[in-house]
């Protein structure tokens, strides 16, 4: 297991290195002088030269990359062009808001989705199964920004049950502020996970080893909860791991609609003001988040499934 974890995180680092390098080169390949765009048309040549030197843009591209990685290894993502603050501190100030939003969404949608899916699989082709199927499909079909706007209108403006904007202060207030945004981006996941668990569960319940477990008189409850669910959950873990990327992009919507601080809002704001170091820094952290979450999903799978551990 430890061996597997080391190998898997080694791979994650490699992926991150490739992704970041490609991203770095892509930004450099965009036409136009970033210094001119940042400083505007009325900047003096001296000012332009100073910024060019500061950003090391006068160096060859390989050297720029080396400088970038050198800074990155020291935790330095560069300097915000406008405020002069370190990008690292800006990004890590916003990160907790996005992380809490994503985790809240995953936790409630996975719990509900797995429960609905397992229940539907245990009672296939009954009324309950059909109802969960209808609910699931309509949840999947609802785009996050529509749910975000509607829930904002209904629960925050009309009913006034939950706060409409911001992230809140203190634990309970923060939780209160999380309800609507996490509802908005988690809703389609409930349906998706429920469908996935149902299909996967029905498949596992038909496998010969479940018949063996029954032939030894194990209780149906134990068979479903231990013998079947542990296998049926494997694809769900993978999907959630990969789904972090999608959640990050839906978080952008939720953060804009609910005026929440967070990575998504930071990226949008800095793209519109062409604040490249901040864009680069936040995209880099998002990429890191994605790579780490897929690696974590693989690790959880390996912990649940000995075959994956052995590399089968």
């Amino acid at each position, binding site marked *: 297991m430890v061996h597997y974890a080391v190998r898997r995180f080694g791979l994650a680092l490699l992926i991150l290195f490739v992704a970041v390098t490609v991203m770095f080169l892509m930004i450099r390949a965009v036409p136009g002088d970033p210094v001119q765009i940042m400083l505007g048309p009325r900047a003096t040549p001296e000012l332009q030269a100073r910024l060019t030197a500061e950003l090391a843009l006068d160096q060859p591209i390989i050297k720029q990359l080396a400088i970038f990685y050198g800074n990155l290894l020291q935790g330095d993502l560069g300097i915000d062009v406008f405020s002069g603050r370190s990008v690292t501190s800006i990004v890590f100030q916003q990160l907790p808001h996005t992380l809490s939003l994503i985790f809240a969404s995953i936790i409630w949608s996975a719990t509900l989705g797995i429960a609905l899916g397992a229940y539907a699989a245990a009672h296939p082709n009954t009324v309950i199964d059909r109802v969960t199927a209808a609910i699931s499909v309509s949840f999947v079909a609802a785009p996050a920004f529509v749910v975000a706007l509607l829930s904002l209108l209904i629960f925050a403006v009309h009913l006034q049950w939950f706060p409409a904007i911001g992230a809140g202060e203190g634990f309970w207030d923060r939780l209160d502020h999380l309800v609507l945004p996490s509802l908005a981006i988690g809703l389609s996941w409930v349906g998706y996970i429920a469908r996935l668990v149902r299909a996967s569960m029905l498949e596992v319940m038909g*496998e*010969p*080893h479940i*018949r*063996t*477990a*029954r*032939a*030894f*008189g*194990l*209780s149906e409850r*134990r068979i479903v909860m*231990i*013998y079947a669910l*542990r*296998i049926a959950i494997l694809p769900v873990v993978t999907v959630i791991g990969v789904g972090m990327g999608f959640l990050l992009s839906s978080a952008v919507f939720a953060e804009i609609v609910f005026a929440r601080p967070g990575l998504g809002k930071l990226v949008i704001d800095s793209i519109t003001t062409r604040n490249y170091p901040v864009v680069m820094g936040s995209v880099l952290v998002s990429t890191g988040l994605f790579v780490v979450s897929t690696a974590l999903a693989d690790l959880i799978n390996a912990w*649940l*499934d*000995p*075959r994956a551990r*052995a590399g*089968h």
Partner: protein
Amino acid sequence: MTETLLEIDNLGVDYETARGDLKALRDISFDVKKGEIVGIVGESGCGKSTLISSILKLTAPNTRFRNGEVRFKGQDLLQNNERQMRSLRGSDISIIFQDPMQTHNPVLSIGAQMVDIQHRSKAAKADKRATAAKMLAAVGIPDPEARLDQFPHEFSGGMRQRIAIAMALMSEPDLLIADEPTTALDATLEVQIIERLHELQREMHCAVLFISHHLGVIAELCDRVVVMYAGAVVESGDVRAIFHDPKHPYTRRLIDCDPGHIKERARVLPTIPGEVPDLANLPTGCIFRDRCEQAGPRCAAVPPLAGIADGHNAACWLNHKGGVS
């Protein structure tokens, strides 16, 4: 006369399908005595698997028990509810399934599964583990203590079938059902596993219902044989009588087709011409009539499974006065 353990009496089982009822088992009758090994032979699709799942009542949802009884120690299992059945499964009646590669849970260690199936025992977990290790040693798995922590995919097919046997015999059942336990294994392994199973059976003195289409194994292992064809018993009796003096044309043809019986080098292997009848749309009369070379006018009526000699039964008019005409 030894005590009868399992009596199957006129058992009729249908599968409800979109094409109508599929008559999977019709008027099945035979019994298994204590400590005896009874073989069931027949081609694929003759109802062997339906029969086994009916005994354990681990049937598909579209299964309907139409008539008859399955008496185990005198009690009709078909009248049992699910809770009563569950208390029999894996304690009084155990089963070894056909495909050892898929019979164990892939994500739980062998030890965990072997401890889990002792759920009726009040013993401490360490004792259950010790019992499991002892059973693994009994079926010939070296270093059983260490291997308990391994997962199914770390064992070979032969090893896994040994483990399945160990699991089935751990509760010292009165009846062991072996559903083609060696079909998925190669020939040398087959002999080893059969021998080990036979040894353990003699030690524990449990009855075995051994399903196979390998006649050689049946002849070597079993005391009595039940021959099934298209969901019906066509002949049953002592293993010697069945193999040396078969009384049903189907049994004769089956023995002729067994590769072990072919003495001369042949260009074409012997087969039984024709096909198994459609069970959803049964022909009238004897079930084997269409494929039987000896069929006559009398075969338009279903022949009863009648006694010929002591314990030897066959369902064929040829054994009756007047023959098939």
